[in-house]
């Protein structure tokens, strides 16, 4: 079927299988591989992207469902070579080690800070419940989210 998505500001029209998942559309059609498939069962959150500004797990959304909508992936966050405050906070606060969960974590936090610009530590932890990390023990991820909240005026 024919789908039409706006991915990181770029219009993409493609003929895809009805059953194609959004994450496979992003990786194989749009050729944006930052979004990772960690589990395929909506458990790990590595594939989290923004759909019209809200975080979704792209392994649980059909490309067809996203047709006509705007998608933002990790590649679309930085502008003119300047990292988004959440990306910068991850770098400064050591919010990553191997980097596999990072794209999903960053997108989940961008979405979280939009809903709640000044969360408590507990709210950050609850907000990230759907994102799993096997390296960090979450300590520096939570710290990065809180640091980003300090610097983000109006999260975008």
């Amino acid at each position: 079927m024919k789908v039409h998505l706006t991915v990181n500001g770029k219009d993409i029209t493609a003929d895809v299988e009805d059953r194609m998942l959004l994450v496979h559309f992003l990786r194989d059609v749009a050729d944006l591989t930052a979004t990772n498939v960690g589990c395929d069962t909506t458990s790990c959150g590595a594939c989290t992207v923004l759909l019209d500004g809200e975080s979704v797990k792209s392994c649980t959304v059909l490309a067809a469902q996203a047709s006509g909508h705007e998608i933002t992936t990790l590649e679309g966050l930085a502008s003119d070579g300047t990292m988004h405050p959440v990306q910068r906070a991850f770098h400064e606060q050591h919010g990553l080690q191997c980097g596999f969960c990072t794209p999903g974590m960053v997108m989940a936090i961008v979405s979280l800070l939009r809903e709640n610009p000044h969360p408590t530590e507990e709210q950050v932890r609850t907000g990230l419940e759907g994102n799993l990390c096997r390296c960090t023990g979450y300590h520096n991820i939570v710290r990065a989210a809180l640091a980003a909240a300090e610097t983000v005026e109006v999260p975008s």
Partner: protein
Amino acid sequence: MSIMGTRVIRTEDPRLLTVGGVYVDDLRTPGLNRAARVTFVRSPLAHARITGIDASEALSEPGVVAVLTVADMDDLAPSPPSSGEWDGSPAPLGGPWAEPLLAVDTVRFVGEPLLEEMLYDVEGNPLTCTLADYAVISPPDLPSFELVASETPTDLNPLGAKGIGEAGSIGSTPAVHNAVVDAVAHLGVRHIDMPATPQRVWAAINKAQKESE
């Protein structure tokens, strides 16, 4: 200057934070278009002895290029000496020893004492196969940490080290498990099998109360 407490910003992070890392599934070189794909086959049985692997049926399937087992790998470095032949002298560091190719019983972090467990039914079928039922620890499960250095070197190895990087011999597992046992010690509980799932803690408390009656 001490490295302790000094934040060293990593140079590889900007790439991981902006375009993502390149993992095997991300490779997009044209040469890979018709490349063979590797599938790892796991044992269908828990706690079984391998007496031999018959790959003939798999090899007869269309499209199968090769089936490789550890027997096909003849250039492995020797394994570290096992405890049986160890004479007690400190093991030389950096020897030409091979880690086992597939990790066995080594991923043991704070998740293990509380939640993570591979369960099998009576016929040996694994019951905890996905990240949903294998209960990997998630952000709300953990507190904020405070780093405290507590140095009591052991004399059992040349480094004096007790914890070794990300190997299984770190302190967090016994620390968390001791805390759980301590929390219910006043009820007479002296032992809980890991991981300390709610069901096991409940059973341990019941057992202790029955024994005290």
